[in-house]
C-alpha cells in the first residue's frame, strides 16, 4: 500500500492538476508540494520499515487494472536493498525540486503537471518488478524532461540542448530496448515472462548461451550507459543540465539518470554473467574516461552549471567502476554512490539555480566574494562542493571509498587512477569554483543579491544536505539495507556456471603465469564483441592483475567474493572448524567490543545477524539464507528470495555439513569442500560430473517452486 501510493500519488495528482482552472494560480504549486511532501513521508516510511535481514522483495504489490494478462504484463512493484535507498532519495529530491520550482514563472500549472508525472515515472521505474513497466515508467519520466527543457529551459543553447538530449536519451533507451527484447526472446516460448524476479530465476537455472550473452550484454551496457552519460556518450549531460530548468535538472541528474545504472545492476549483470565478465573490463576502462577525462574537462569550464554537469558525469564513473568490480563491496558502494550522488546533484543544481535566478548569470569569472553577500547559499554550496570532492562526513565518501576497496582487487591500476580523479582532480575544480565564486573580494555587481533568509525556503537545501550527512556519518543505515540484495546480484554474476567453464579453466591455467598475458582461450572467447573490443579487452587484461579471479571466486564459493586470488591462503582457515583465525575478534582479545553503531536500527534481527564470536562470517550468512528458503513453506509477508540460493550451498560450513550430508544439494557442497582442502585443482568433470549450476539448481528449483507458491501470491492493491 505504501509503495503503491508512493508511485501512484504523483500520477493522480498530475491528473487532478489538469482540471484545476487557470485562474487558480497558486493551487498547482500547493498541490504539487503537498503531493511530494506526502511522497517524502512515504519514502521515509518505506525506508524505515524495510527489513534489512530479508533478501527477497518486500512491500510487493500488484496494481490491478494496469497490465495485460494475455501478454503476461502486470504492474508489479516491490522493494529490495537495491532500490529502497533510491526510492527514498527519489522522494526527497522530488520534494526538494518542487520546493525550488517557484522560479517557474509562466505556465506553472503545466510545469508542475510534468514534474509530477516525471516523479511518478522515476519512482515507478525503480519500483517495478515487471520488465515492461520498468521500461515504460522510465520513458514516462523521460518525455516530460524533454518538454520541460524545451519550454522552460534557459540560455542560448536551449534548443540545441533539447534536441541533443532528446536524441541521445532516445537512442540510449532504444538500444536498451533492443537488449531487453532480445533478453526476453532468450526464454523459450512457453516460459516467457516479463516478471523480473521470475526471469532472474529462470536464467539462474537455465544459463543463457554465452554467445547470446556476449551480444545482448553490450546492448544493455551501452544502451543504459548512454542514459547515464558513459564516456564517450556523455556530451548531452552538461549541455542539457545547463539548459534545463532547475527542478528538471535536479530530478534528472539526481534521480532519473540512475535508472541506467539500476538497470545494469538489476537486469544486465545478474542475468548475463558471462557477458558481464567479457564486457565489464571494457566498462572499467571507459569509466576512466568519465573520471579522469570529464574531471579534466570540468576544470576548464567557465559556467557553474557546466562545471556541475561535468562533475556529475565524472561521478558516474565511480559507479561504473563499482559495478565492474563485480564484488559485494564494489556493488554495494556503487549503490551508495547512486543514492549519495542523487542528493548531491540535486543540491548542487538547486544552488546554482538559485544563484542564476538572482544574478542571471553563472559565469564563474564574473562572480567573486558571494560568501559575504549570501552566507547561507555560500555555505551550502561550499558543502556541496566539498561533498563532491569526496570529503568524509558526506555519503559520497562512503560510496567512493567502498568502490575503491572493492575494485582494488580486480583493477588496481584503474582504481589508482580513479583515486587520483577523486582526490586530486575533483578537489582542483571544486575548490577553484569555491575560490572564484565565493571567496575573494565581493564584486560590485552582486551587492544586492539576497540570501535565503526564510527558514521555509532553506528547507529543501537543509533536507538534502542533512540526508547526505546522515548517511555519511552512519553509513550502516544504508549499507545494511543494500548488502543482502547486492550479495544476491553478485553471487548470481559470479556463480558457478556451465557456460563459463572454458574461461575459468583458462584463468586457472594462468594462475602461475604472467598476470598480463591473457591465455589463448580467453582471447578466443573475447573475439565475439568485435575487433575494437578485443583490443580494449586485451588492454584491460594487462591492467587486470587477477585474470583468474573468476575461478578463484568460483572455487571459494560465492560467500567470499570479496577475496581475490591473493587471498588463497585464507582457505586453510575456512577448511578447519570454526573458531580459528577466521574470526576477526580472535586476533586481539584485549579489545572490548561494544554493540553496533547504528543508532536508528529498528529491527532486532540485525543483532542476530551479527556474527557470533569465533565463527566466520561466511558460515553464518549461509545459514541465514538456508533458513530463508526452508521457511518459505510457511507463508509470511515478505516473499523469500526469488533467486535460487545456488552457490551458498557449496560453501557449507562444517557444522551444517554433517546435517546436509544426505540432502541432494550436499553433494556439490561436499565436492567443493573437498576441493578447498585439495587446494583448488579445479572442478574436473571426473570429480563432479554434473555441471555445477545445473545439477544444483535443479534440485533447488524444485524445492524453491514448491515453497514459492503461497508467498509469491501478491498482496493485491488495496489490501
Amino acid at each position, binding site marked *: 500500500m505504501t509503495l503503491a501510493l508512493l508511485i501512484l500519488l504523483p500520477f493522480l495528482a498530475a491528473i487532478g492538476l489538469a482540471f484545476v482552472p487557470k485562474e487558480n494560480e497558486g493551487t498547482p504549486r500547493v498541490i504539487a508540494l503537498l503531493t511530494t511532501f506526502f511522497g517524502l513521508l512515504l519514502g521515509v516510511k518505506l525506508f524505515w520499515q524495510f527489513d534489512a535481514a530479508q533478501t527477497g522483495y518486500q512491500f510487493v504489490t500488484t496494481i490491478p487494472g494496469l497490465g495485460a494478462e494475455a501478454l503476461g504484463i502486470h504492474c508489479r512493484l516491490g522493494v529490495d536493498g537495491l532500490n529502497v535507498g533510491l526510492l527514498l532519495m527519489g522522494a526527497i529530491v522530488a520534494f526538494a525540486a518542487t520546493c525550488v520550482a517557484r522560479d517557474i514563472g509562466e505556465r506553472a500549472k503545466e510545469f508542475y503537471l510534468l514534474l509530477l508525472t516525471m516523479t511518478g515515472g522515476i519512482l515507478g521505474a525503480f519500483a517495478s518488478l515487471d520488465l515492461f513497466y520498468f521500461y515504460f515508467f522510465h520513458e514516462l519520466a523521460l518525455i516530460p524532461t524533454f518538454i520541460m527543457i524545451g519550454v522552460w529551459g534557459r540560455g542560448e543553447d536551449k534548443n540545441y540542448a533539447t534536441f541533443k538530449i532528446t536524441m541521445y536519451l532516445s537512442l540510449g533507451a532504444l538500444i536498451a530496448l533492443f537488449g531487453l527484447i532480445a533478453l526476453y526472446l532468450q526464454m523459450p516460448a512457453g516460459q516467457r515472462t516479463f516478471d523480473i524476479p521470475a526471469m532472474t530465476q529462470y536464467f539462474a537455472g537455465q544459463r543463457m548461451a554465452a554467445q547470446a550473452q556476449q551480444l545482448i550484454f553490450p546492448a544493455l551496457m551501452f544502451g543504459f550507459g548512454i542514459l547515464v552519460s558513459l564516456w564517450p556518450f556523455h556530451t548531452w549531460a552538461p549541455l542539457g543540465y545547463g539548459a534545463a530548468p532547475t527542478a528538471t535538472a535536479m530530478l534528472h541528474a539526481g534521480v532519473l539518470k540512475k535508472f541506467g545504472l539500476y538497470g545494469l545492476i538489476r537486469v544486465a549483470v545478474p542475468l548475463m554473467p558471462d557477458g558481464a565478465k567479457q564486457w565489464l573490463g571494457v566498462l572499467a576502462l571507459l569509466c576512466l574516461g568519465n573520471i579522469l577525462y570529464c574531471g579534466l574537462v570540468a576544470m576548464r569550464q567557465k559556467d557553474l552549471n557546466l562545471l556541475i554537469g561535468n562533475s556529475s558525469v565524472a561521478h558516474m564513473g565511480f559507479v561504473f567502476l563499482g559495478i565492474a568490480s563485480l564484488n559485494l563491496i564494489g556493488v554495494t558502494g556503487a549503490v551508495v554512490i547512486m543514492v549519495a550522488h542523487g542528493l548531491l546533484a540535486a543540491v548542487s543544481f538547486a544552488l546554482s539555480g538559485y544563484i542564476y535566478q538572482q544574478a542571471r548569470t553563472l559565469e564563474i569569472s564574473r562572480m567573486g566574494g558571494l560568501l559575504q553577500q549570501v552566507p547561507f547559499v555560500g555555505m551550502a554550496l561550499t558543502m556541496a562542493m566539498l561533498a563532491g570532492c569526496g570529503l568524509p562526513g558526506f555519503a559520497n565518501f562512503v560510496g567512493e571509498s567502498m568502490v575503491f576497496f572493492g575494485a582494488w582487487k580486480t583493477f588496481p591500476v584503474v582504481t589508482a587512477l580513479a583515486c587520483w580523479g577523486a582526490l586530486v582532480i575533483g578537489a582542483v575544480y571544486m575548490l577553484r569554483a569555491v575560490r572564484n565564486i565565493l571567496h575573494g*573580494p565581493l564584486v560590485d555587481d552582486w551587492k544586492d543579491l539576497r540570501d535565503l533568509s526564510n527558514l521555509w525556503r532553506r528547507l529543501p537545501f537543509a533536507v538534502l544536505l542533512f540526508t547526505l550527512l546522515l548517511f555519511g556519518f552512519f553509513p550502516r543505515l544504508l549499507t545494511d539495507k543494500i548488502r543482502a540484495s547486492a550479495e544476491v546480484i553478485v553471487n548470481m554474476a559470479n556463480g558457478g556456471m556451465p557456460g563459463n567453464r572454458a574461461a575459468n579453466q583458462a584463468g586457472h591455467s594462468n594462475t602461475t603465469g604472467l598476470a598480463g598475458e591473457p591465455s589463448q582461450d580467453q582471447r578466443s572467447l573475447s573475439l565475439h564483441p568485435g575487433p575494437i573490443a578485443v583490443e580494449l579487452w586485451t588492454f584491460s587484461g594487462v591492467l587486470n592483475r587477477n585474470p583468474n579471479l573468476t575461478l578463484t571466486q568460483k572455487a571459494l564459493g560465492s560467500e567470499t567474493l570479496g577475496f581475490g586470488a591473493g587471498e588463497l591462503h585464507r582457505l586453510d582457515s575456512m577448511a578447519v572448524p570454526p573458531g580459528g583465525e577466521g574470526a576477526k575478534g580472535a586476533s586481539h582479545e584485549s579489545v572490548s567490543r561494544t554493540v553496533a553503531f547504528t543508532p536508528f536500527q529498528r529491527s532486532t534481527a540485525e543483532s542476530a545477524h551479527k556474527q557470533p564470536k569465533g565463527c566466520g562470517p561466511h558460515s553464518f550468512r549461509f545459514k541465514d539464507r538456508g533458513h530463508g528458503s526452508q521457511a518459505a513453506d510457511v507463508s509470511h509477508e515478505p516473499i523469500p528470495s526469488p533467486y535460487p540460493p545456488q552457490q551458498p550451498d557449496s560453501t557449507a560450513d562444517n557444522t551444517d555439513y554433517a546435517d546436509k550430508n544426505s540432502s541432494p544439494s550436499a553433494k556439490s557442497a561436499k565436492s567443493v569442500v573437498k576441493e578447498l582442502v585439495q587446494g583448488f585443482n579445479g572442478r574436473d568433470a571426473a570429480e563432479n560430473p554434473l555441471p555445477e549450476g545445473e545439477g544444483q539448481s535443479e534440485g533447488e528449483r524444485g524445492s524453491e517452486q514448491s515453497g514459492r507458491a503461497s508467498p509469491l501470491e501478491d498482496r493485491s492493491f488495496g489490501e
Partner: protein
Amino acid sequence: MKLQVLPWLILFLPLLAAAGITLFTLNNRERSAGLSIGAIVLGFVLTLFFIAVNDWEPAGKETVASWLEVGPLQVDFGLRLDPLSLMMLLIVTGVGGAIHIYSYGYMHEDRGVARYFAGLSLFTFSMLGIVLANNFLQLFIFWELVGLSSYVLIGFWFERPSAAAASKKAFLTNRLGDFGFLLGILLVWDTFGTLNFSSIQVELIRNPAALGSLATIAGLLIFCGAVGKSAQFPLHVWLPDAMEGPTPVSALIHAATMVAAGVYMLCRVFFLLDLPDSHALEVIAWIGGITALLAALIATQQNDIKRILAYSTLSQLGYMVLAVGVASPAPAMYHLTTHAFFKALLFLGAGSVIHAMHHEQDIWKMGALRRRMPVTFWTFLLASLALCGLPPLSGFFSKDEIIAATLTPEHGHPALFVLAVMVALLTTFYMSRLVLVAFFGPAKSHGVDHAHESPKVMTVPLLALAVPSVLGGFFGIAELYGHQLGETHSGYHVLAVVASLGAVIFGLAFALGLYWNAAQDPLPEKLGALAQAARNRFYFDELYEATVIKFQEIAAAIAAWFDEWIVAGLLVRGAHGATELFGRGLRLAQTGNLQTYAFLFVLSAAVVLYFMIGR
C-alpha cells in the same frame, strides 16, 4: 578499563560545540566562544581524570563500534587508548585549550568570531579523531577532516585573495599526499584483510614478510600521507602560505598539532615501516633530513615573523621525521611533544606582537619591544631558547635524543648526523636573529612607540605554556613514549651532546655578531646568491607552477578541446550532419516528376533483371 565513556565524550564534545555554534549561536560571539572553549577545557579535565583513574595503559586498549560492515570490509569506529594517544590527547586539549582562550582575546574585534570558534572546534574534533583512531580508514577520515578545518581556518579571512589562495593550496597539496596514503591503505587492506592497527601488528609479528616485495612501496605510500600533512619536502610549500590564517590558528594547527599528525601517524604505524625487507625508513630519514636543512636555510632569510616561525616548524618537523627514519619513534614523539609547547608559545607570542603592532609582521619594522612587552618578551625568549636546545630547557632533551639517534649503527648514518647538527646551528642562528631584531636594538618604526602589552586573556596562556616549555624535560615524557615504542638507545651519546651544544654556541655567536643593534640585514651582501635563493624559498613555488600545475592545466585544456571539437563537434555534430546530408541527397530523388520516377523504375528493373537472368 573504567569510565569507558569518557574518551567518547572527549572526542565528541568539540563536535557538539561546532554543531551548536553553527546552528544556534552564529550571531552571539560570547556564547560561541564559551561553547568552544568550554568543550576543549572540559576535554582536558576529563582526559586528566581518565588518566588518573586508568593510568596510562588502560586494561582494554580499545573501545569499538561498528561503522561500516560489508562483506570482508569491516571498518570500526574505535578509540585506541595507550600512552601514545593519551599523551596526544593531553597535548591537543591542553595546548589547544590555551590557544582557544588566547583566541578569545586575539579575535575579539573580528566580526566572524562565531564562525572562527566553530572552525576551531571542528578542528579539535578532527584532530582528536586522528589521535584516537584505531584503524586506517578512520584515521583517513579524520585526516581529511583536519584538512577541511585547516582549509576553513586558513581561509577565515576569505575576502582576502591571498588567504583564499593559500587555503586552496593547502588543501590541494594535502590531497596529493592523501592520494598516496589512500593507495597505501588499499594495499595494506588487500594484504591483511583488515584495517585495524592491532590486528595488522599481530599479523606482522606472526609473519614479518607478509607484505613481501611490496613492503617498501606500502611503507612509502603511507609515508606520502605524512609528507602532505607534515609538510615534508617536496610537498612543503603549503605550510608557509598557511600563515595567512589568524595567528592562533597558526599556533594550533600549523605548529602544535595538525602538522605533527603526520609524525604521529608514522609512529602509530611504525610496525609497518620497520620491516626486515623494507627500505622505507631510509627514504623517510633522508626526506626528513632534507626538509630540516632546506627549511632552516630558508628561515634565515625571511623577514615576516610568522614565516620565520613557519619555516622553523618545517625544519623541526623534518627533525621528527628524521627520527622516525632512523628507527627512533620515541624521540620523534618526545620532540613532537616539547615542540608543541614551545612552538605554540612562539606563535602566540608572535601573535601578541602582531596584535600590539597593529598587524605589522615585518621584523625589520619592530625592535626594542623588550621593554614595552615584558611578558611577551620573556616567554618568547624562553621558548626560543628551548627551540634552540639550550639545557636544561625541554628542547635540549628531545633534540639531543634525535641527534644521538642518528648515530645508531644499524639505522643511523654519519651524514645524517652532520646534517642534524648543522640544522641545530642554523636553528639557533635564525631564532637569535628573530629575537635580536624584533625585541632588542633600536625601534625601527613608529609602530613600536604605540605598542603595549596584550591583555591578560592573552598573556596568561603565554605563561601557562611557558611552564612545560621550560620544564618539559623533567616530566618523564620520554620514558612514557619509550615504554610503548621501545627504547631505541639508552643515555645521551657524548658526541651528540657536545656537537649540539657547540652548534648552539656557534649559532648564537654568529647571530650576535651580525644582528646586535643591526638596522638592516647584512647577510644578503655577504652571501649573495644563496641568500637570494633562500629568500625566494629556493624557487619551489615557481618550479611547481611551471611543471606540475602547468602539466595538469595543459591536460585539462587538451581534454576540453577534445570534448568540444572532437566528441561533441566532429562525432556528434558530424553524425547529425551526415544524417541530414543523406536526407537532402534522398530528397533530390523525390522530384515529383513522373518521368524521373519512370526512368528510375526502368533502370532498377533492368539492374534486377541483369542480376537475375543476364549473367
